[in-house]
């Protein structure tokens, strides 16, 4: 370390004949690309913040993201997203190890750690697919235009508005369709089939619903869905392309391309991109799940 610092001070970087940044061209350009990408993500997140600050009400993330695969209706705020965050941190660490193995010209090490990084990336994408699917197809009893409707989180409706007074919710239940009521009963009581429930009268169905326990909410701000899917989708697309880039690196390393070139600088550039994906997630995690 001491020798490096000494070199830095003695070298006249701007007197010509050498690159003043002591960086390979491709790596420097990767840095500038990542900087511009940071502004793209920043603009998205700041736009989200602007809309959020312009609203009187914004959904509580702990109410929105409280599901865990296989846990049914259990209320587990922050659990699944912490799994996703750790997957990404660990895959970042394996990438650091791959880059380091590249420094030492260790082909086997590069292949091993790049492969683990790809596994981490795919695991993250799988988690995100489950989360989106759960949010879109989930059915939440929501007060919309004076009646109860079962809706998921989409870009046109948000089911996580303010909680509704049980008296108002009961009134809205009476205006709702038999189909909706039957589905609400069916969700918690599987002893009767959907067909039997559809054959019942509205009053019978209403008698089977305990409105006070349902914590029915009004519609929330529509913008929530667009921003959530837009920004996490854009990040997920970065993860996806990162996985593709790492796959290409894996194949190239396997074929000995870098050994023939004599250096593993490509791995460093792929590494920079992968760490950036992790970096962005840190902020997405902050803006959507924590605050």
């Amino acid at each position, binding site marked *: 370390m001491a020798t490096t610092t000494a070199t830095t001070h003695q070298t006249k970087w701007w007197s010509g004949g050498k690159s003043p940044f002591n960086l390979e061209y491709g790596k420097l350009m990767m840095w500038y690309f990542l900087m511009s990408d940071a502004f793209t993500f*920043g603009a998205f997140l700041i736009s989200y913040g602007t809309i959020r600050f312009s609203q009187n009400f914004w959904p509580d993330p*702990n109410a929105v993201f409280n599901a865990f695969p296989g846990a049914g209706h259990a209320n587990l705020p922050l659990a699944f997203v912490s799994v996703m965050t750790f997957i990404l941190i660990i895959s970042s660490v394996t990438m650091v190890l791959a880059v380091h193995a590249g420094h030492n010209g260790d082909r086997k090490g590069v292949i091993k750690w790049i492969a683990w990084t790809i596994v981490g990336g795919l695991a993250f994408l799988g988690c995100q697919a489950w989360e989106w699917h759960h949010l879109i197809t989930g059915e939440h009893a929501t007060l919309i235009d004076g009646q109860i409707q079962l809706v998921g989180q989409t870009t046109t409706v948000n089911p996580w508005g303010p909680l509704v007074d049980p008296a108002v919710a009961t009134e809205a239940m009476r205006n709702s369709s038999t189909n909706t009521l039957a589905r609400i009963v069916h969700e918690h009581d599987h002893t009767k089939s959907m067909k039997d429930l559809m054959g019942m009268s509205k009053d019978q169905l209403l008698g089977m619903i305990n409105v006070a326990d349902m914590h029915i909410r009004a519609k929330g701000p529509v913008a929530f869905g667009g921003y959530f899917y837009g920004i996490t989708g854009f990040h997920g697309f970065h993860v996806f392309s990162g996985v593709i880039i790492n796959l290409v690196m894996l194949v190239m390393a396997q074929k000995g391309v870098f050994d023939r070139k004599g250096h593993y600088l490509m791995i460093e550039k792929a590494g920079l991109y992968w760490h950036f994906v992790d970096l962005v997630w840190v902020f997405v995690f902050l803006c959507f799940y924590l605050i």
Partner: protein
Amino acid sequence: MDQHKLASPEMTFQHHTDDAEFKKRVKKTTILLSVITVIELAIGLIIYTMHKGESPSEFLILVFKGVVCILTLAKAYYIVSVFMHLGDEIRNMIMTIVVPLLLFIWFIAAFILDGNSYKNLRNEFDPYFKESTMPKKHHANEAEKVPAHKSEKE
């Protein structure tokens, strides 16, 4: 330290770190990032239980959210400077990346304040917006209500 062949003609010297020191540094950073994440999650759960309480202190929630933001910036610093090795580059290069990013200070402040001002203006001049979107109590409080006019029948 053995002298590697320089990988590209643009480079005057190579950064060297011996294996043991490198492993120690990566391990330390990984543990640090994990610990910060766990603290963030703990604060998230504290905020969640505060929201469920009778009358949560808005100020305290804001303080906790501020702490989470600072912890996130710390995480970002460690990822960029250790994992991406920006901290090991020479100073001029670091500045070309970091200085433009300072624009974010203005960017965040200006737009968030703009959104906030838009909300205040609408609450003042658009009674329907205020009536239909303002939660009656704290939004996660179980007792809050929604205006009854939405269930009007024709």
